[in-house]
Every structure is written in C-alpha cells, then in structure tokens.
C-alpha cells in the first residue's frame, strides 16, 4: 500500500522524562538560576502585565558567599534571622525525631519537610494573627514558626489521648484555627480553592485578614488549582497562592504536571495574577516575596501566585523510597543548596552566629524535642494507646448526632 500524499511518520505519544534516573549522574546545568540580587522588585500595585518576566526568573537574595544582596534584601533584622534559623532547625530536628518514632513503630506514618524548611518558616513571618493558611501536609513550618506547641503536634502524630483531632487523622494532618492553620485534608489540592473562598469571605465582611493557599507542584494539575485561580482573579480575592515546587510528586518529576513548557508561576499569567518565582531555599528571599504578596492582598490589590523553587531532600513520606526513581546523590547536587546552611553562613559572615553557637543551639533544640516527646508518649502512642475513647468516633460527624448514629453507637456498645 502506498502512503497517501503528504503523509508523515506515524504519530507517537510524548511522555516527559526527567534528566536523571537512578545510576545517572545528577545534573542541574539546564536550570536557570539568576545571580542573587539580579531580579528587580516592582511596587506592589504594579500592573501584572509588566512583570511577566518574574514568572520565569528566580528571585534570590543570598549569594554564594552568604551576602544578602539586591532590591529584595534588607527586610529582616538580625534577631529576626536568628529566630528564623532556630525555627528551621526546630522543624528539621522535629522531623528527624518523628521520622525515627515512626520507624520505632510509635505511629503509622510521617512526612518530613527536609530541605524545604525555609518556605513555610519564612512565609509564616509575613502573616499576622487572624490570617488563615490552607496548608498541605508539608507546611509544619507554619505551625512551628508560629509558636505552636510541638508537644501538641506530637500528640496528634501519636493519635494519643491528648490528640486535638481525637485520633481521627493520619499523622501530620494538624488543625488549628487559633493558629491560622486550616485542617489538612489529605485529598490533594482541595484546599487551594477553599483558601480563595475564605479570602473572599474576609473581603465580603470588610475584614483585614488574608488567606494563603498552599499546593505542591504535582497537584497543580488538579482542577481545584485552576478553579482557585479563576475565582481569585475574578473576585480579586485577598489571597496568596503558594506553589511549593520541590521537584518531585512521590516518584513523578515536575515535568509530568507541567509539561516541558513553562514554569508553574507562569500558570498565573493568563489569569492576570502577578506571578513570581522565588528561591525557596533562601529564607530572606522567601520572606521578602511573601511580604510583597501579603501586602498586596492586605491592600485589596488581589491575589499573587508564588512558585517556591526548592527540593524535597527526603522521601515523600515514611512509605516512600526515592532511590527507586532518582539518583541517590541528586539532593546534594541541588544548586540552591540547603536553607539552614545558607542562612547560617549569612549569619556567621555577619558575626551574629558561629559554628559553636550553632552546635549548641542544635543540641538544645534536640533536647527540647526529646523532652516533649517523652511527655507526649506518657499520653500514649498509636499502637499502645491510650487513645480517646472509641465512642468518640461517632461524634462530630454532625453538630448533633442524628438517630441513626445514636443507634449505631448503642449497637457498638460504645
């Protein structure tokens, strides 16, 4: 059979693949990384159209030498930075401890934020009491940087008798209205549009509170991401829409959610939403961009989309082993470095910190965490209890238990 005129080769499906797989030499040479200080800082009331380039660049403050440079620098005092360092160190030590607790069989599951601690910790500093975060499972830094009790977090992780959510949720699915931390779902992306709705409500009521939605780069593919952008742009909701791009959605590299086309930040451009990309491992840059976006929201200028470029240095969860899908040493070659090391270097360079003090602080934090852990374990762990009484499973399905639940509880003898 002869080919019809004008025919080409058969169609084939393009399936994106990451640059490297296990056994390959990791290489981020293709990644665009501007010099620290190179990206301009527009006024918060800038026309979104005039800052399209910011969605394709990377805002950075800390350079390789540990200096804070450029227009986004100079917004935090040394005390702020020392506190920020402590927050990040606390998150890391807390994660290590709880990861270990899961391995020891004290709970079912855990998720670390290893390598991306700066994102939530620095962002939290830009928010006020009364504002609301709609986080994913990897924003424990919001709670810790907000002064939430790590002891209470452990009680949740252990599902013990003091668990504020009564043993109903997987570990790390915290909830604290008081601390501006919306109950975590576990179904990905659903919180993104809810954050927009919360912000719309604040605007409807003439309030001064703002919301922040959080999502991973992988789940930007969900429809909730798109409906959030539609609603946020249509109603100019006072919301900051945060995409944490840590490169990996379990085993799936970011190119599967994004195609090989553009950045996640650039998703906002078609909606007329100012969209910025920031070095997520740079505490100062994260804070500066967060502050910019929060100010915009607070001034009723509408939403901002931020892509935090970071790297998930640990496994997705305690149920995951990244050596099955990415090179073992990929994390150490990540070009934006480690957020704690970078801030530490900056503070040491400015003689506000030292290796010695860092080691002391680390030991002190670890000891505090150990103390809290002992205290929490006195109130139970997942498999050994004690838990809240089993009959509480029938509570809070509704404000008041309807007759069928009352009957089921009676039948269960609980």
């Amino acid at each position, binding site marked *: 059979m002869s080919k019809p005129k004008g025919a080409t080769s058969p169609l084939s499906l393009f399936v994106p693949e990451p640059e490297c797989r296990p056994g390959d030499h990791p290489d981020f040479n293709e990644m665009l990384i501007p010099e620290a200080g190179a990206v301009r800082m527009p006024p918060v009331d800038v026309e979104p159209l005039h800052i399209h380039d910011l969605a394709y660049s990377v805002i950075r403050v800390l350079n390789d030498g540990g200096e804070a440079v450029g227009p986004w620098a100079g917004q935090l005092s040394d005390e702020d930075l020392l506190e920020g360092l402590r927050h990040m160190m606390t998150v890391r030590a807390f994660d290590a401890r709880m990861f270990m607790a899961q391995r020891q069989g004290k709970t079912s599951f855990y998720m670390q934020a290893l390598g991306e601690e700066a994102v939530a910790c620095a962002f939290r500093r830009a928010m006020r009491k009364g504002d609301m975060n709609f986080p994913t499972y990897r924003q424990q830094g919001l709670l810790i940087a907000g002064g939430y009790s790590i002891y209470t977090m452990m009680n949740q992780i252990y599902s013990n008798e003091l668990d504020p959510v009564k043993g109903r949720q997987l570990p790390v*699915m915290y909830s604290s209205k008081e601390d501006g931390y919306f109950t975590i779902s576990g179904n990905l992306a659903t919180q993104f549009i809810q954050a927009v*709705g919360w912000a719309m409500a604040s605007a409807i009521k003439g309030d001064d509170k703002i919301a922040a939605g959080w999502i991973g780069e992988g789940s930007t593919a969900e429809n909730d991401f798109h409906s959030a952008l539609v609603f946020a742009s249509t109603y100019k909701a006072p919301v900051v829409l945060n995409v944490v791009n840590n490169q990996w959605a379990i085993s799936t590299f970011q190119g599967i959610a994004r195609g090989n086309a553009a950045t996640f930040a650039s998703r906002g451009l078609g909606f007329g939403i100012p969209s910025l990309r920031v070095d997520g491992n740079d505490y100062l840059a994260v804070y500066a961009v967060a502050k910019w976006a929060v100010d915009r929201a607070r001034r009723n200028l509408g939403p901002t989309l931020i892509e935090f470029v970071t790297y998930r240095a640990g496994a997705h969860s305690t149920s995951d082993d990244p050596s099955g899908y990415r090179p073992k040493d990929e994390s150490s070659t990540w070009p934006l470095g480690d957020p704690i090391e970078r801030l530490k270097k900056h503070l040491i360079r400015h003689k506000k910190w030292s290796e010695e003090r860092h080691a002391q602080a680390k030991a002190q934090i670890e000891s505090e965490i150990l103390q809290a852990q002992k205290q929490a374990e006195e109130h139970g762990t997942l498999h050994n209890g004690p838990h809240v009484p089993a009959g509480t499973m029938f509570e809070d399905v509704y404000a008041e238990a309807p007759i069928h639940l009352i009957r089921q509880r009676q039948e269960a003898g609980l």
Partner: protein
Amino acid sequence: MTRMTMIEAIRSAMDVAMEKNPNVVVFGEDVGYFGGVFRCTHGLQKKYGSQRCFDAPISESGIVGAAIGMAAYGLRPCVEIQFADYVYPGYDQLASEAARIRYRSAGDFTVPMTVRMPTGGGIFGGQTHSQSPEALFAHVCGLKTVIPSNPYDAKGLLIAAIEDDDPVMFLEPKRLYNGPFDGHHDQPVTPWKKHELGEAPDGHYTIPLGKAATRREGSDVTVLAYGTMVHVALAAAAETGIDAEVIDLRTILPLDLEAIEASVRKTGRCVIVVEATKTCGFSAELMSVVMEGCFHHLEAPVIRVTGYDTPYPHAHEWAYFPGPKRVGAALKKVMENN
C-alpha cells in the same frame, strides 16, 4: 400568609435568611443580576448588593470549594448548582471536604453551607437535566440531604438548612416549582395557589431537618416518598381507592426512622416510590430500614417503584417516569395477599 409557588417560597427563604443574618451569602451560575435560570434568586442582588448575591464562574468545584472556605471563615453560603446533573465536578469538595471538615478537625472548623440544586425529571430535560442524585449525597456521612415537596416545606426547610451548622444538600424537584405535579403529564397542573401547602408565612419559620410529614393517613399500606413522588403517590392512592398512608420524608438524611417504623408497623405493608434509578438508590436504603425495623410486622413483600436503571431518556420521558399508573399497580399488588 401568602400564596406562593415553590420558586417564590425558595426565594423568600433566602430573602428571610439574608435579612436576618448578614453572614448569609448567595452565589452560583447566573444567580446574580439575572436571578437564576429558574428565577429562584431573582431580586436578591438588587436588595442585598453584589457582595452578598453574585454570579459565579461555570465551575461547580469552584463554587462548592469557595463556599467551604467562606463557611470556614464564618459565613453561611447558600450556593446554587444550576442542575443537580452538574454537581459532579463539585462532588469531591462535597464528599471529601465539606462532609468531613467538622469530623477531621474535631469541631475546630465547620461548614455551615447549603447547596441548592434543581433535581428530577418531567421537563424534557433529557439525561443531563433530569437526574436525581440524592443517594450519592445520602451515602456520604457528614452531609444532610433535603428534598421538599411543596412551597410551605421548601421555605421552612431551606431556612432551617441555611441556619444549620452542617453542610446541607437541598434538592428542589424542578417539576414541582410551579405546581403539585402528580405524574399526569397529559393534564394541566393545578397551580400552587390552589393547594393548601402553596401558602406560607411571609417571615421567618423553620421546619426541622430529619422530620417526615404524613400527607395522607391510611391503614392499608405505607407509601414512602419524597419530592415529586409524594404527589404521584397521593394521586395513585386516590385513583386506586387503597387507603394508603403517604409519608413525605422531606429529609432523607437524617432519615426519620421512627416515623417510617411507626407507620409500617401500623399498616403492615410498604411501597417505596422514588424517581431515581433503582440499583443502590435511596429506595434500597428505605427497603433496608423497613426490613431491619419492621420485618415481623410485614404482611407482604415490600415493593419499590423507581426510575429504571437507564439514563433519563428524552423522547420516552413518560415511559421512564414512575407515574401514578405504576404506583397504583404496586399498591394493588402489595394488597393482593390480603
């Protein structure tokens, strides 16, 4: 008291709720300036302003998701899904989120939200404007599901739904909007103004969620129905001369178990009439409730009359619709071994 159609009753409920509580907001597709494709929100934007009644993008997941966020903030959103058939993009937000936020946060966050949607067939809506998806909501613990059958109930139940502290699915049988349609599609429908339940107070009143109403007392057989099928069942009882007790469930979740059990134990017979498809539909749940609670009182097998397990056909709508003839046949059959 004012004579009103079901549309006017629903509109009046939102009006009363919005007037009473500034935290009540109304939005959805076409509901703002235009007042909704069925006119249920007509005039609300003019009266309460566009911050409290506004048009939404064509995004059911966005409408429901945003309403959840608003409710978590402390508002009481009452949103409209243009047709129940369109709710599915928002279903994840309902089943995974709205229904479980109180539970998963142990009461830290709640979702006092109402989701209104026209349901059911009888208007030549074809398979995309006729569905009755109530079982998909009733199956989800944490949601409440209400289906009124008349203007008086619609208003009192909708105010109760808006004031309820949990998410409520409010399904409005669209064939009842303008009159108590009894399934005789070849005859003109009596307008609501001539019906005793077409009269409702102008102001605030509520009908508790989870309480059934007896529309006709009887001793031969209990008919369990809701929405449009209440009127079909009443017509079938009148036409067959069978002394049926017609229970209008009004709320299918929470379900008024006690009312169902009391009636079936009294009559010893039961016919379940539901417009939705049969398999795994809410009629199956009603059957189970009767079996579990009334088995030893039954004198005949329980019969279900439902929509067939096919999509709702356009041209053959009346062959599909469980009208008074089919219900009447079921009533006769259940009485056979008298």
